[in-house]
């Protein structure tokens, strides 16, 4: 496919369980971003990756959140010991340019996480 894909599209889990969310960026895109969007809210930055540089993790809300990316390919966002306040849509985006003229972010459809 030509776009950013995310899986699963929906995830329901019980409080205290760990979850993994996956993002497949557009091939060749060097930058990858994760956001959280609570119901009726804007996008909350979580983390971004750029090539082999150290990721900017400044938006991760707690040490229960972590993310990995191998090279310029797929990324996984892991939430450990999920809490009800983690319920949200998690959006992934990728972009081609980075450091150049305002690279457009291409967004995936998101994963809706519900913690019971």
């Amino acid at each position, binding site marked *: 496919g030509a776009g950013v894909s995310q899986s699963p599209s929906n995830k329901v889990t019980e409080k205290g369980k760990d979850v993994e969310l996956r993002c497949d960026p557009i091939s060749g895109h060097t*930058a990858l*971003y994760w*956001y959280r969007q609570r119901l009726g*809210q*804007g*996008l*909350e*930055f979580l983390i*971004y990756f*750029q090539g082999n540089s150290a990721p*900017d993790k*400044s*938006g991760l809300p707690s040490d229960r959140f972590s993310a990995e990316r191998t090279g310029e390919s797929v990324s996984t966002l892991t939430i450990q010991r999920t809490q009800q306040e983690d319920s949200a*849509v998690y*959006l992934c*985006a990728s972009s081609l340019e*980075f*450091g150049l*003229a*305002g690279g*457009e*972010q291409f*967004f*995936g*459809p*998101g994963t809706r996480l519900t913690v019971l």
Partner: protein
Amino acid sequence: AQTVTQSQPEMSVQEAETVTLSCTYDTSESDYYLFWYKQPPSRQMILVIRQEAYKQQNATENRFSVNFQKAAKSFSLKISDSQLGDAAMYFCAYRSAKGSYKYIFGTGTRLKVLA
């Protein structure tokens, strides 16, 4: 730290009419980029328009145009000849041209288009 403010949680417009969505931001930087993104009910975010801060000319994309006032730190989006398909959440976003490349998003404006 940079902030982006969208003061209109919801707006309505009649089909074929014009509507303007407001966005203000705060930054001490001189080089940056501003964006408007659209998020329809399907929740797939789509770029509507982009503005480079060093450009004085306002960006336009077909029926979409911006009014960029750098001194006032204002970046409004005008939608002309509104169509039913324009109904969505609209987010204003900021990104520095140097240093951190995080995008800062506003809280969004829900646009309703009335037939």
